[in-house]
């Protein structure tokens, strides 16, 4: 049994991907059939539960598939208490979400696609929390980002859905890049990419030179994914997603990935002042800002989104505090949050589905027409507010307890912030979970809420009550998860009643504050609503800045004008050559004054031709002037003893000039010339470029001229080839193969000409 569970791990993690074809088919059917899909995540949850038992007895398990081992990439999976806690949440909540969606998207043609993306997301998420290899973790991290992009933007006809999806992807994707860099750095510093090996060896990167980079990069990834300030703006915007998506991604799974990362990395890179300080501070600020905004919103889902931001900050802060009590508190809070927040999102979604609005100010008195949903909302709100008997209460007790115990001057401040945030969140809980059902009046739904919509939120909310009353059910799981973060920790004992402690007093104070805030919620909202900080500004500015930079550089560098291109090319090459000249310190110029008159004449011809070509206003003159330059070059060849080259040069120049004149016969004028500043610039560039090349050339004369081949032929023609005519010997003996090649080229060219001639004849006929 034990071996079987281990070996199945990779297949189980990847199973949502394997099932995709089936999911598309089944998801398209009527709701009662599509609901069957919920069975598979439920099976997964049972499996992870069983594996958890085994891990509790025999320690973490690891299983791998040979994948890209030679790349240092192995598709191996590692399951310890921490990752299994997340896996349980992912599969358990996932099952309920799939059930809910089957009804939510009933008779929607997109249902199959939706369920498929949801399954793909689930698989990526499971891969993320169970991946052993750091780089595989990164890969799954990016996959969750990509699938969540598809899910948030599912209603892509709406522009705001598209932009919100893109925003979430950009923010979390940038974090993923940071994580990739961190992963590579860790692998480099520690010599392995495998978490199992690193954790087993107890590697700590604290002393590595790259440590500050690693810590900051990992935290950047975690903060962006878990919507920490100042990156939290994407989460409220992502509320344009269909409700099941918000309930799944934005309460239970994706936003928790950052928390998982921080917890997972704590043994490797954590427990240093830098790490703990950053995590605690960012978490606390996020908690405060999120709680503050949550009571200011009127859209149910935005209320929930900001309270999620707050809760994520709170958990992050606890992970930063890092004591055993704090980590246990973080994990209990995280589990409680997954239950009640998922439930509340589903309640909000059902309300919108049935009544058509999610505006809190328009919803009231719905408890009569939707009793089951009202119960679910109330239960979830109670857990979120931390009413005794609920798991949320247990979590909050641990929160206060660990902050009271935490030393340092910041302890009281953190405690104050935690109490304030909890009170605000409690108020938000009842605003979202109870105010739509309380009171009287308000809209009436068209029909009864179907069971498949009401049951999942009820189950989630009730789970919070059950776990609160009977904490013994989960303390084994939490204990195992804590030891995944802190190494071997003493077993965690959760209980409902701690006696009359200061913590209890704080809890009661919080509840009193919640009552006050909820009673006067409308006034509070009015006061808070105008006080907003625009965190999105940075994002918008960064994107705009990039766009502006792109537009500017396009205009500046890529005008499409060939002249500009040539100018840039010449400037750069000239600059390179000049740099070389200058960096060599301009060694004494060789003697250049020893010039014969005929050489000077050739030089004059070349320079004169070039100047005349540049200045002439008719194409024909320009072509002929260029021809003069060419003849000058030919003359130079002649003067320095290469008559064959000179002859070639002369004939090529003549032929070119003739062809050019024929082509341009009908296009004599050049058109408008450029203005004098441009001409000045161009001529400066030309002189500089020509000057630097000429300067380099002066040194060529000084270098030793290596051997020549002609001597070899003269000496060996008779002894080796038995021929007195050197030219003949070269052609038919020394270079016989070349000659054969030349003949082939000639005949091939003749064939080409033949083909072209035939083409002309065909066109005439």
């Amino acid at each position, binding site marked *: 049994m034990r071996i079987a569970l281990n070996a199945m791990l990779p297949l189980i993690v990847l199973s949502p991907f394997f099932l995709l074809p089936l999911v598309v088919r089944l998801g398209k059917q009527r709701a009662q059939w599509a609901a069957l899909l919920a069975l598979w995540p439920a099976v997964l949850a049972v499996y992870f539960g069983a594996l958890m038992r085994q891990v509790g007895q025999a320690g973490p398990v690891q299983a791998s598939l040979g*994948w*890209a*081992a*030679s*790349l*240092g*990439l192995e598709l191996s999976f590692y399951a310890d208490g921490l990752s299994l806690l997340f896996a349980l949440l992912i599969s358990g909540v996932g099952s309920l979400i799939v059930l809910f969606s089957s009804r939510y998207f009933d008779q929607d043609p997109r249902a199959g696609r939706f369920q498929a993306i949801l399954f793909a997301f689930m698989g990526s998420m499971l891969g993320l929390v169970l991946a052993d290899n750091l*780089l595989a973790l990164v*890969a799954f991290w*990016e*996959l969750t980002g990509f699938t969540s992009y598809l899910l948030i933007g599912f209603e*892509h*006809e709406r522009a705001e859905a598209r932009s919100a999806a*893109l925003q979430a992807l950009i923010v979390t994707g*940038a974090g993923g*890049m940071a994580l*990739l*860099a961190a992963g*590579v*750095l860790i692998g*480099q510093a520690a010599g392995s990419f495998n978490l199992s090996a690193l954790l087993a060896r107890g590697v700590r990167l604290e002393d590595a030179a790259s440590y500050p980079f690693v810590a900051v990069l990992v935290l950047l990834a975690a903060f962006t994914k878990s919507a920490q300030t100042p990156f939290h703006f994407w989460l409220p915007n992502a509320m344009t997603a269909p409700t099941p998506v918000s309930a799944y991604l934005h309460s239970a799974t994706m936003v928790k990935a950052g928390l998982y990362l921080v917890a997972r990395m704590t043994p490797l890179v954590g427990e240093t002042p830098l790490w703990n300080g950053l995590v605690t501070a960012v978490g606390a600020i996020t908690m405060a800002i999120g709680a503050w905004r949550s009571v200011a919103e009127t859209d149910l889902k935005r209320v929930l989104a900001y309270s999620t931001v707050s809760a994520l900050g709170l958990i992050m802060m606890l992970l930063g505090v890092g004591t055993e009590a704090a980590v246990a508190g973080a994990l209990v809070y995280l589990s409680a949050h997954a239950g009640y927040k998922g439930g509340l999102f589903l309640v909000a979604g059902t309300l919108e589905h049935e009544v058509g609005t999610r505006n809190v100010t328009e919803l009231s008195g719905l408890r009569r027409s939707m009793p089951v949903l009202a119960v679910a909302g109330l239960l979830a709100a109670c857990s979120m507010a931390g009413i005794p008997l609920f798991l949320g209460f247990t979590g909050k007790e641990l929160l206060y307890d660990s902050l009271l115990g935490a030393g340092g001057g910041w302890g009281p401040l953190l405690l104050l912030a935690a109490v304030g945030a909890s009170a605000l969140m409690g108020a938000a809980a009842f605003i979202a979970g109870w105010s739509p059902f309380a009171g009287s009046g308000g809209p009436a739904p068209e029909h009864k809420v179907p069971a498949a919509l009401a049951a999942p939120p009820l189950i989630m909310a009730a789970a919070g009550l059950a776990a609160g009353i009977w904490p013994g059910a989960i303390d084994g799981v939490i204990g195992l998860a804590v030891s995944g973060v802190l190494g071997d920790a003493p077993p965690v004992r959760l209980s409902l009643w701690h006696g009359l402690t200061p913590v209890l007093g704080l809890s009661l104070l919080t509840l009193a504050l919640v009552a006050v805030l909820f009673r006067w919620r409308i006034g509070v909202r009015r006061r808070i609503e105008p006080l907003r900080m625009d965190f999105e500004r940075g994002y918008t500015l960064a994107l705009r800045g*990039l766009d502006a930079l*792109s537009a500017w*550089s*396009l205009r500046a*560098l*890529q005008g*499409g004008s*060939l002249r*500009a*291109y040539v100018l*840039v*090319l*010449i400037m*750069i*090459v000239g600059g*390179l*050559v000049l*740099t*070389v*000249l200058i*960096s*060599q310190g301009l*060694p004494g110029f060789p003697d250049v004054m020893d010039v014969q008159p005929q050489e000077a004449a050739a030089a004059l011809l070349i320079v004169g031709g070039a100047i005349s070509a540049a200045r002439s206003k008719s194409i024909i003159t320009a072509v002929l002037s260029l021809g003069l330059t060419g003849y000058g070059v030919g003359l130079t060849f002649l003067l320095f003893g290469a008559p064959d080259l000179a002859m070639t040069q002369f004939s090529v120049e003549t032929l070119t000039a003739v062809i050019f004149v024929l082509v341009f016969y009908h296009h004599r004028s050049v058109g408008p010339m450029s203005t004098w500043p441009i001409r000045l610039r161009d001529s400066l560039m030309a002189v500089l470029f020509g000057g630097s*090349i000429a300067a*380099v050339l002066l*040194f*060529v004369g000084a*270098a*030793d001229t*290596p*051997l020549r081949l002609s001597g070899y032929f003269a000496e060996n023609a008779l002894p080796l080839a038995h021929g007195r005519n050197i030219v003949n010997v070269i052609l038919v003996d020394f270079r016989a193969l070349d000659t054969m090649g030349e003949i082939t080229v000639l005949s*091939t060219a003749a*064939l*080409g000409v*033949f*083909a072209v001639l*035939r*083409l002309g004849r*065909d066109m005439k006929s």
Partner: protein
Amino acid sequence: MQSADFLALLPLIAVSAASVSVMVLIAFHRGHRSAALLSAAGLAAAFAALWPAARVAPRTVTGLLTVDSTVLFYSGLLIAATFVVAVLSYGYFEKRETRREEFYILLLVALCGALVLVGSRHLVSLFLGLELLSVPLYGMIAYLPEQRRSLEAGLKYLILAAASAAFLLFGAGLIYAQTGTLDLPGLVSLIRAAGPGSLLLPAGLALIIAGFGFKLAVVPFHLWTPDVYQGAPAPVAAFIASVSKGAILALLVRLFAPVLEVASVALIFTIIAIASMTAGNILALLQDNVKRLLAYSSIAHIGYMLVGFLAGGQMAATAVAYYLVAYSITVLGAFGAIAVLANGHGEPESLADYRGLFWRRPALGAVFTFMLLSLAGVPVTAGFFAKYYVLAAGVSATVWLLALVLVLTSAVGAFYYLRVLVALYARPDGRREVREEPPLSRADWVLLGTLAGLLLSLGVFPNLLLAVIRRTAG
């Protein structure tokens, strides 16, 4: 030359023979199908000839060319890529009213140039290969004379390529004047041993780098790229992106890696790599023209490959080889999708032409999606491993700055690929008239399907390719 030499050159000979045969064929019998079939057969024969050549490798032929396993690996890549281009071209030109047969001669001759370039061990063969590759490209880029942009692109490429070839030649002359040798391995070890020394050698090296830089289209020698990619027929753009650049890069990695030990050369390449990654990605951000977008993205990708080149060492050679294969597959697929969507009047260029493509042509949309994801380096595509591997090479060589720029700029890069993706999946808004999209031939389907399959299988099982690279080019 001995018979083993001919055996070693068999792939090159097969390609040359194919080009001559196509010319003979069209001299007597003009037919698009027969010309394309003959070219494809020649390319297949050349690919098959790699194995007999491998039997006599490693071998130096006439002092000008090297034939060893690395050269043969890259030759195989170039031949296969050209084969894809040939098939794409057939479908593409079949829809056009133009003389089509000569195109295949140009294509095969350009491949000859690329093969010579990859195998060259002498500045003369290097230059010969480069020109043999460039000159047919002038014609290929401007192959649609009725299109202004095509002609304009051809002219721009002609002038700039000629200028850069002149630089390269001049640089070679300076180096010869200083050292008296044109033999590349000898030159490389000379430079490595003695440093750049006095004036002529560094000046020559700078000019040669400029010449290479132009062909690779790296910043600041990249200016021609977007105009040429936009103006050239899509299969030709695919050829430039995969074969023309691939040949130069392969040569760089194969021969010139030791020169990087000279600090100033490494500095120049570092600047080029950083500038290319940054400028390529930033310039692509606002592009609404998909072909120009791919042009800028190719600048960035060459920058990434240069990171691998600069990292040096065994891992770097493997990383660059892997990247080159992955990138070739991807860019052939991307331009392939554009080519098959071209009709008698032109190609779909603006982003609006792709709006809702997925809903009109799900399979084609999916293929294009895979290509874009691979360009962005998303997991489960070959592009992910390629990028990862280059990054890992950079990190293990501790070229931190390069690695950092790579990560940052590819984050920017993901953004514009995403914009194309979003367009692919947007619902057609009905306001705009959808351009006419021709049906796909069976050959197109098989080709694009194979490319997508390769992309995914390399993304899931990178070892398939790595094993080959390790045995040959690694």
